[in-house]
């Protein structure tokens, strides 16, 4: 029971961190977020074959072939496929993210128009307010 709780919490924390990073909408954070989400999902698939300690998925002679003696091999096969696919897709995403950074000069995922400009402007405004130096009197503020 405690093992199951620990495992469930681990998957949940990974997923939560992934979603948080994904919502930051910067391409590097996004890549990290999707990676964490794919870790969470891979673990989830693996654990869906039930938690088993000290059991292999390879059949030995003389041991009855059921799930009390062996780990379920199918989720292990599924998770292998899922890992390979998510690895490849992360590579694609990294290539796209690097290209987007080079083309746009910044790493915000929404490069032009809409909300993203608003957030960029908001960040700029905050930076300017923080670094604000009052101009000498008689000059128009920038």
């Amino acid at each position, binding site marked *: 029971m405690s093992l199951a709780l620990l495992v469930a919490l681990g998957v949940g924390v990974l997923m939560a961190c992934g979603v948080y990073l*994904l919502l930051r909408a910067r*391409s590097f954070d*996004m890549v990290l977020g*999707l990676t964490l*989400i*794919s870790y*969470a*999902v*891979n673990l*989830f*698939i693996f654990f*869906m*074959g*039930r938690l088993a300690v000290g059991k292999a998925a390879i059949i030995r002679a003389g041991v009855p072939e059921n799930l009390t003696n062996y780990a379920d091999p*199918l*989720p292990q096969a*599924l998770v292998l*496929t*899922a890992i390979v*696919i*998510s690895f*490849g*897709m992360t590579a*694609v*995403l990294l290539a*796209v*993210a690097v*290209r*987007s950074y080079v*083309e*746009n000069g910044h790493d915000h*995922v*929404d*490069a*032009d128009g809409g909300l993203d400009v608003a957030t960029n402007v908001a960040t700029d405004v905050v930076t300017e307010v923080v670094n604000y130096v009052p101009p000498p009197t008689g000059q128009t503020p920038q």
Partner: protein
Amino acid sequence: MMAFALQHLAILPIAIALLAAALTLLVGERRLAQQRAIVWVAIGLMLLCAVLAVYRTSSGQMFVYLMSNWRAPFGIALVIDKLSAIMLLLTALIGAVVMAAQTRGGRPVGTYFYPLFMLQLMGLNGAFLTADLFNLFVFFEVLLAASYGMLLQHADRVRTNAATHYVVINLLGSALFLIAAALLYGVTGTLNMADLSQKINAVGPQSRALVAAAGFLLLVVFAIKAALLPLNFWLTGTYRAATLPVAALFALMTKVGVVAIARTLTLIYPDGGLINAHMSQALLVIAPLTMLVAACGALSARDVSTLIGWSVVGSAGMLVTAFAVGEPKAISGALFYLIGSTLATALLFLNAANLDQASARATTDTDSGSRRWAWTGAFFLIGAAVMAGLPPFSGFIGKATILAASTSHPAQTWLWTVVLLAALLSILAYARMGSRLFWKRDAALAPGSSFVPAGVLAIALASLTMFAAPVQRYTDQAAAELKRPQIMIGNVLGKIPQQKPVAPTATPGANK
């Protein structure tokens, strides 16, 4: 030969495409003529397979193929029923015209375009054929990976940004898909859709919530693919960024989502099953709203690609509405509308590829110029009529069938209002875009434009109207088949693996 083709019919469309992709890679990047020849041969074979599948399934046959000869719930099963036969034929047809547009128009071809193109067709065929949930995920990834590649060719700033959104939302969708599949496996111990259909109804009360959650997660994933309402905002940007022949191929990708939703509602969570009613209720709100938003989007579109993109969203909404209504007649109408709207979307995209919207009011008023101009306008009109649902084209027949089938549905008022209002708004949108493009001459013919592929699609649409009766008979049968999942379950789970021919000299342990 024929016996071999029939025995392996369900794997052939996938295997041919994969083989062609590998061969085009082997031939080498520079030898475009040889690559084209390979792709044409492959598409020809795929068309043959699809025609054979449609012909054979029309007599009530269903092809079940057990991969590696494993029995159904344990191995992966591929199934050709009437729905997948229709989709195979559409894929091969659209693949052929897109290929024709790509080669005839003399467009520059990006690096490894042809291998990616074949992989995309492989993913589409596989997604339509598979009867295994995890295998469906794998084929989704194949077609998505190929589409990322094709989208990023000749990428400029706009395309890269659109591709970023597209890749991210689809990766998230894949993660959700895996969660749903793993949940279903954890509860039922199977991933075969036919087996799932039986086991889901037999789960105990303590696991019902898990199974329901998995079902709705699947719907969310498929709604991302089909671009239903809150999840549709990636579509217009992506389609606008794609080169137009590629966008015509992408028109099939939303249909993958629609077909997957149809499978979910008819096979995995069938009528009268655990949460089918909840799913239908949710979709009957979301899908009509999608149509309305899509019609408003179409009305606000400033360029042709965005307009067509919004119509793709709208047609997905229409199809899902019909599947959610769930009457056999509505499903039949939806399948009819699916054929027409897919062909029309491809026609509109290929036709838009002939227009150069950047150079407005060009002076191409020579005789041949204006004749070609007239053809472009006519193709636009045909496509618009199908998408808006105007008679005499197939869009009208499909929509009318769906509306007639929903007369006894409790949500009839809501459905009729939305469908008719959305149709009116699309007519306005297309009329405005058409008069701007073709009367005000806000565009010119693109150099090297080709009319044959669009013409083929126009002929296909016209014949869909002329031969509406036999097609509708086929879609009626397909709908009846979908409404009775026991047929599919019996065929898949009852399929007996091929017996191995016994080698006379083989004795146990002789090879050791």
